[in-house]
């Protein structure tokens, strides 16, 4: 709805102000190109979807495992945390040649890049979630003889879910961009490839088709996460009838 409005404003502004097409094409032109060039674009889209889903899944897995590990072994937390931050701060342009030299042009280096992008928000959010567990409930669980495993699965994990989903939302949003960036490591197809090609041959309309695809994908992933959250954390929704 709001998006529609945005499009209309954009269209009229673009037409009125006379911004040239190669700088900012109007939505109509973009849709036209998207429709026209669909068969060309389709395989790129598919490849990026595949890449981002795989990367996100891997990021989720590694992010969660890291968080659980750091949570259960607090004494290594202090020493590992800096490494996590380092992992977020090595620019791709430096990492890229190293990754390609070590792992070639296959799937692996791309996975590494997406995972690097995705796992961090999940880890931070999950860790903070675990830490917030209500003292009262923890007290009960321990008194009732819960083992550390039970404490984790039955209390800390469900308690961290809302926080974890914060991280998932951030991560899902980044996963598509992560995939696109990873394609700059050298790929045969993918939205990233399509976009650089379009950009270097000055086809701004195609660049925007690519952006639309990226944005739509991200929105889609985000909504799926929100749906899963609603379903898993539904007990929260039933509350607060008075608000």
């Amino acid at each position, binding site marked *: 709805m709001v998006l529609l409005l945005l499009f209309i404003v954009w269209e009229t502004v673009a037409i009125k102000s006379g911004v040239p097409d190669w700088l900012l094409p109007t939505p109509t032109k973009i849709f036209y190109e998207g429709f026209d060039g669909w068969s060309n674009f389709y395989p790129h889209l598919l490849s990026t979807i595949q890449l981002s889903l795989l990367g996100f899944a891997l990021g989720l897995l590694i992010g969660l495992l890291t968080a659980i590990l750091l949570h259960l072994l607090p004494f290594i937390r202090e020493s590992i945390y800096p490494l996590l931050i380092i992992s977020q701060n090595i620019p791709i342009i430096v990492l890229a*040649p190293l990754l390609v*030299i070590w792992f070639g042009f296959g799937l692996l280096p791309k996975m590494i890049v997406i995972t690097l992008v995705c796992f961090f928000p999940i880890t931070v959010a999950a860790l903070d979630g675990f830490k917030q567990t209500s003292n009262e409930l923890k007290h009960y669980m321990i008194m009732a003889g819960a083992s550390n495993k039970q404490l984790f699965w039955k209390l800390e994990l469900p308690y961290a879910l809302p926080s974890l989903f914060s991280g998932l939302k951030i991560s899902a949003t980044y996963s598509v961009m992560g995939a696109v960036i990873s394609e700059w490591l050298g*790929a045969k197809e993918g939205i990233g*490839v399509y976009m650089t090609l379009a950009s*270097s041959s000055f086809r701004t309309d195609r660049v925007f088709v690519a952006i639309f695809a990226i944005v739509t994908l991200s929105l889609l992933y985000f909504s799926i996460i929100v749906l899963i959250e609603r379903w898993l954390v539904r007990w929260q929704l039933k509350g607060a009838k008075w608000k």
Partner: protein
Amino acid sequence: SNPKSASETNKKNTHSLKKVSVVLDWTPNTNHTGLYVAKEKGYFKDEGLDVNIIMPGDAGADQLVASGKSEFGVSYQESITQARIQGVPLVSIAAIIQHNTSGFASPAAKNIVTPKDFVGKTYGGWGSPVEKSVLSSLMKKENADVNKVSIVNMGDTDFFTAVKRDIDFAWIYYGWTGVEAELRGEKLNMVYLTDYSDKLDYYTPVLSTNENMIKENPDTVKAFVKAVSKGYEFAIKHPSDAADILIKAVPDLDPKLVKKSQEWLSSKYQDDAPRWGEQKQKVWENYASWMFDNGLLEKKLDAKKAFTNQFLPQ
């Protein structure tokens, strides 16, 4: 013979082909046409090679080639010069374009026709010290002072965007960006480097490989260069067909731009050289000494080791 056996021999051929890869400098464009022609027309196969053309993205070609991850690459004389100074074992094995086709472009309305017109204008670059030296060299010829040019770093911004705003002129390859301007009907003024300084007529782009390849697999290098050379010769003779081959290989490029760019560029590949790919030691020495004089190099370059013509077909 019947088709079945033909395909069988084909398969056998593929089996015995040597797999090598060539990394481009950035996205595919008409600088690379010869490579695509050689692949499409089977010149590589004729030489017993199965060539994979790779778009490197952020990884950059030079390090991949230097480390041996890729056998061949597309590079520039400037890069190879700097790389060798740092001990990176890259060697240029063919000049793709004989003369430097780059220059300072500006919209016609700005009226920048010769280097002395740079005075009082704003130049948009990417922040490399080379730029100021080049500007200075050109302007010195007309006794203009480079310090009167305001140099702004425009990062990754493309030419057309930049000149819409604070920038008056920028450094482009005419064969691509200039041709795009023609397509758009925008009039440009070009100040070519080659018109003002011999020393700045360096090779860009070139084909590169590493020292190891030359030592261990000279035959492969020879076969590769031979096939590529055939590719570029085809592109020189049949610009339109060559352009079609590139468009077919990379359908996401803008066909109009490729066609027109190819027309412009085809005659520039070999130009006045006796054969395609030929490199002169003088060009290497000139540019390196120019860089050294301008404080852009820490050491002098051993130009003989930086390039070789030994693999070019006779």
